[in-house]
């Protein structure tokens, strides 16, 4: 909403407020002023000129040589390129030395050999957007009506010396969608009176009801319809002050009748429509629901197909307007119009929204109906328009109004006690102060004991409950005056849940291990939605995605991590270690919330460790990732419950990928990105992991208790085993553990060999075994006995021989 400072000052005394001061006060009281524009501040030296003569430029077809009276003794010669310039016009002249918007300076010039002492201006050259220029001047220079004097300040005559406040209105404050509404707000802020117009058109001739009859067939949608008839109007431009104020409010001037309906719309917030009475033909207005499939040509010459949830104004036979949205081409006011019907009605917000949405027609009028207009202004706005048409279109207002329906809702009464008000705000206001605030708002109040009852005017439909009164008091009392306190009463211990703490532990662990945390998008393409997923389901889709790239919910964090690694790799950052924690979404059926699982995923590619001048350089491999996962499990106290099993999921290298098991149940995957996929995104060898973080964190409940350090020495035995190449280390380890019993406390692989010195199809795996008895010193014999058992078991279960 654009508010002209000059226009506003008609209704409330703001002479002592600069536009900036006013803007700040309005903002602090609740309606944000996004900007204050002062057009004249960017211009100077622009006066009214009178074109005394115009002749063709001797050397240029498209230029005119004009002699212009600028209020001085001698007229000045100006070369003008506008097609519409002519003798006898009053125009805006930027004199030599003038400045136009954009710091455009006017200098004396010679154009094709002819001297030019200034420039005749169009409205857009004076900073008015061309979409707001009256059509006849949009392509050329502007002509003043004849009531100006050469030499006077053209910017003042055009109301360019105004200040325009741009209000950003929240949906609850549609009351400020009118000059009167803003006036009430400003009056409340400044503690002043509002001066409203009191329209009282001079009526003459026959009663209006003889010229038109009105019937409402859809009273739910249109409870009240008021019309006036103005005869013998002369269509022409509206007065300059009205045109310029409309442009300052962001409305394009058309002709006097249309401008007046728009002027009253901006003034009262009540949308009006002017029909050419004679083009209605039947002398009748009938308001009804549109028929399904009914055709109607709106005044923008577009044919619309209507439906039964839209409301039309008809002449009893055919539609003449789409109610509250747009008039019809068949009944619009044009240059030949003589008799005008002014419509002022209350249309239901929903019925107007249906039509404006269906046809994509958002207008100043429909926006106001949708938010709800003030029913108490329907009649006054109609009178106001009639009065202005009599004055500025030379018409005769017929006697009386034609009214159909009735809509005068009782103003709401809302009560609140002073105590409740003060306890909600944390203030110590007195009743007198509260009453004063409501009187500034021009709300009637009644006070009984501790309780104040406020009669809320119909213009403020947003106030319905006691808390709304609290807000009015708070914003006008001033939030700056509310003290700073902290909640009283029971104090609670704050903190993270064990799960949330665990998540942080995992993050810090990975960051300490060298990973940077990534955050990627949850929405992805159809192709990526289920890629690398631990559990593949029909991906969950958005109903109306904005792009194919963001149309589905991800089932794995990995696709976007691969994308991030490729992005970095393409920018000379070939060594990447990224991890992410986040949700994936599993389809549970239509209209059922998807299952959200928190995952931990990561990608490593390039060099993992390097210390170049000492010749150390280690590329990331499968065991780098595995070590990281094992470390995480160790940090969470889950080491013994995690295991790895060769697996061949899609998207991974079939020989270098493992399923991660937790308590024997699948909980994740680690492995090399399939080389052909890596090639597609220009990545070198890359390793991925994804784990069900929620499963791990929910299981990770370590009750830390100290285990005594063994007091007796341990005995170590190394064994090198020869087994078939296909035998996995994990199998040997399991056999050793089972056979070793409780004395065997530690076991690890220290060498693996497969090659020339081995028989084909065989490999050697060497283990270091540590035996301890916590209760006494182990003897060699005891260890040997256990060790023999271990070797026998290995022989029996894995055909493992001791390496010679």
């Amino acid at each position: 909403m654009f508010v002209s400072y000059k226009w506003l000052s008609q209704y409330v005394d703001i002479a002592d407020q600069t536009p900036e001061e006013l803007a700040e006060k309005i903002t602090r009281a609740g309606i944000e002023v996004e900007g204050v524009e002062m057009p004249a501040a960017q211009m100077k030296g622009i006066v009214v000129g009178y074109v005394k003569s115009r002749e063709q430029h001797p050397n240029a077809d498209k230029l005119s040589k004009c002699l212009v009276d600028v209020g001085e003794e001698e007229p000045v010669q100006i070369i003008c390129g506008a097609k519409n310039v002519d003798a006898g016009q009053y125009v805006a002249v930027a004199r030599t030395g003038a400045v136009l918007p954009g710091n455009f300076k006017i200098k004396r010039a010679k154009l094709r050999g002819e001297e030019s002492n200034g420039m005749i201006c169009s409205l857009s050259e004076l900073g008015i957007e061309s979409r707001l220029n009256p059509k006849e001047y949009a392509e050329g220079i502007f002509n003043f009506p004849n009531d100006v004097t050469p030499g006077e300040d053209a910017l003042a005559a055009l109301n360019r010396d105004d200040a325009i406040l741009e209000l950003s209105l929240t949906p609850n404050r549609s009351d400020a969608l009118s000059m009167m509404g803003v006036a009430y707000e400003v009056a409340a802020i400044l503690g002043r009176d509002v001066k409203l117009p009191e329209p009282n058109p001079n009526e003459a001739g026959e009663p209006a009801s003889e010229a038109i009859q009105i019937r409402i067939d859809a009273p739910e949608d249109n409870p009240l319809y008021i019309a006036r008839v103005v005869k013998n109007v002369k269509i022409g431009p509206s007065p300059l002050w009205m045109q310029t104020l409309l442009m300052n409010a962001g409305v394009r001037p058309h002709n006097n009748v249309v401008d007046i309906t728009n002027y009253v719309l901006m003034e009262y917030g009540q949308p009006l429509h002017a029909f050419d009475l004679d083009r209605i033909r039947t002398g009748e207005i009938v308001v009804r629901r549109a028929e399904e499939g009914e055709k109607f040509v709106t005044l923008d010459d577009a044919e619309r197909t209507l439906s039964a949830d839209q409301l039309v104004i008809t002449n009893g036979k055919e539609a003449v307007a789409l109610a509250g949205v747009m008039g019809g081409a068949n009944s619009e006011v044009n240059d030949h119009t003589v008799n005008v019907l002014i419509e002022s009605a209350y249309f239901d917000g929903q019925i107007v929204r249906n039509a404006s949405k269906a046809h994509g027609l958002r207008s100043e009028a429909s926006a106001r109906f949708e938010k709800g207009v003030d029913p108490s202004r329907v009649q006054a706005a109609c009178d106001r328009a009639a009065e202005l048409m009599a004055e500025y279109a030379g018409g005769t207002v017929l006697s009386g109004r034609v009214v159909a329906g009735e809509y005068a809702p009782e103003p709401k009464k809302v009560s609140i006690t002073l105590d409740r008000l003060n306890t909600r705000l944390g203030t110590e206001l007195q009743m007198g102060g509260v009453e004063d605030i409501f009187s500034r708002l021009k709300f009637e109040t009644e006070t009984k004991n501790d309780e104040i009852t406020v009669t809320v005017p119909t213009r403020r439909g947003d106030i319905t409950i006691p808390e709304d009164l609290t807000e009015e008091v708070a914003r006008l009392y001033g939030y700056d005056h509310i003290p700073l306190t902290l909640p009283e009463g029971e104090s609670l211990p704050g903190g993270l849940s064990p799960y949330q703490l665990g998540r942080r532990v995992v993050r810090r662990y990975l960051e300490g291990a060298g990973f940077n945390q990534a955050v990627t998008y949850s929405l992805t393409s159809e192709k990526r939605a289920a890629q690398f997923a631990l559990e593949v389901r029909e991906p969950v889709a958005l109903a109306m995605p904005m792009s194919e790239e963001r149309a589905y919910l991800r089932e794995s964090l990995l696709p976007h991590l691969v994308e991030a690694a490729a992005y970095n790799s393409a920018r000379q950052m070939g060594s990447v270690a990224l991890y992410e924690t986040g949700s994936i979404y599993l389809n549970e059926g239509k209209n059922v919330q998807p299952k959200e699982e928190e995952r931990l995923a990561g990608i490593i590619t390039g060099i993992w460790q390097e210390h170049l001048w000492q010749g150390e350089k280690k590329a990331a491999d499968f065991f780098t990732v595995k070590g990281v996962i094992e470390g995480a499990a160790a940090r969470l106290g889950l080491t013994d419950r995690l295991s790895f099993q060769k697996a061949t999921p899609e998207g991974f290298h079939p020989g270098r990928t493992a399923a991660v098991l937790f308590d024997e149940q699948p909980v994740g995957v680690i492995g090399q990105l399939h080389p052909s996929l890596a090639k597609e995104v220009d990545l070198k060898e890359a390793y991925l992991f994804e784990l069900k973080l929620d499963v791990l964190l929910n299981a990770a409940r370590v009750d830390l208790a100290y285990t005594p350090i063994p007091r007796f020495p341990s005995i170590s035995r190394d064994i090198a085993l020869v087994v078939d190449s296909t035998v996995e280390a994990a199998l040997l380890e399991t056999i050793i553990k089972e056979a070793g019993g409780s004395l065997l406390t530690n076991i690890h692989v220290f060498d693996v060999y497969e090659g020339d010195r081995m028989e084909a199809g065989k490999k050697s795996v060497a283990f270091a075994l540590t035996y301890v008895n916590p209760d006494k010193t182990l003897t060699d014999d005891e260890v040997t006995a256990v060790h023999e058992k271990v070797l026998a078991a290995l022989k029996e279960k894995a055909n493992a021989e001791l390496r010679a």
Partner: protein
Amino acid sequence: MEEQLKQLQDEAVMKAAAAQDLKELNDVRVAYLGKKGPVTEVLKGMGRLSAEERPKMGALVNVVREAITKAIETKQVSLESEAIQKQLAEESIDVTLPGRPVKLGGPHPLTRVTEEIEDLFIGMGYTVAEGPEVEQDYYNFEALNLPKGHPARDMQDTFYLTPELLMRTHTSPVQVRTMLKHEGKGPVKIICPGKVYRRDSDDATHSHQFNQIEGLVVGENIRMSDLKGTLDAFAKKMFGPDREIRLRPSFFPFTEPSVEVDVSCMCGGKGCSICKGTGWIEVLGAGMVHPNVLEMAGFDSTVYSGFAFGMGQERIAMLKYGVDDIRHFYTNDLRFLQQFSVHE
């Protein structure tokens, strides 16, 4: 005999002093003091001496032996010291060469901000509540006083999955779910961090995915001044002790009254590009919980009141670290991420 001993002593002391290394010195020790050495030989020959001569001679032998031993020891210390000096000289390194790198990762800046805010409110007695990102229309809108067809739904352009399911547009549904769990009994004191989604085209200042932290306190006699005091404490801890807050009336369907909260700019009110010359930066939306919201969540709004607030981690991170484009948070460029590995 006496002379012979003197000569031996002189000879040995000279040889010890001349020894080039520990081995040579040891040879000297063995040659003169060893079991077959001349001093021992002299001692062995003492049996042949008379009873008067014997002690005299014994004392002399000891003197000689001690003198030789001392000479050897002195030389040994000096040789050992030389050897160490030599070894140390050989082992000398260039300490200015780079050390073996320890891989350092770090949290995402949005996580840093989230955890910092979490910790700050945890210190004030809050717990952290989380909830689903795909929500039912009911929890995201209806239970927050935004019935279907409410014009304010347009303020939050929404990704719908079905007419009843959507990507949550704020973390407020977590507040609703938490209140319902409390079954009408206060107090409730939570913050709700998480990802949210809006139908926005991604550009320098908009992202279809972003993060929010909302807070909710419900209790008997919770006041607007409590909201103000809480956010003032937050602003001072988050941005610095000299920062102040300013409340401006606003509108949210789920709070009444509603306010926008500005934090004073680091320029100290002089006006700069960050605050666009106003001295204030808009950081939070807040208000007193709307009685309809309390009632729908099972709280008696005549007994209970509450406040709620919400802020965006992206915006805070942009202000705090001077990040100029919101898309940086989702590109995962290592040159961006690695800047946040530093402890602040």
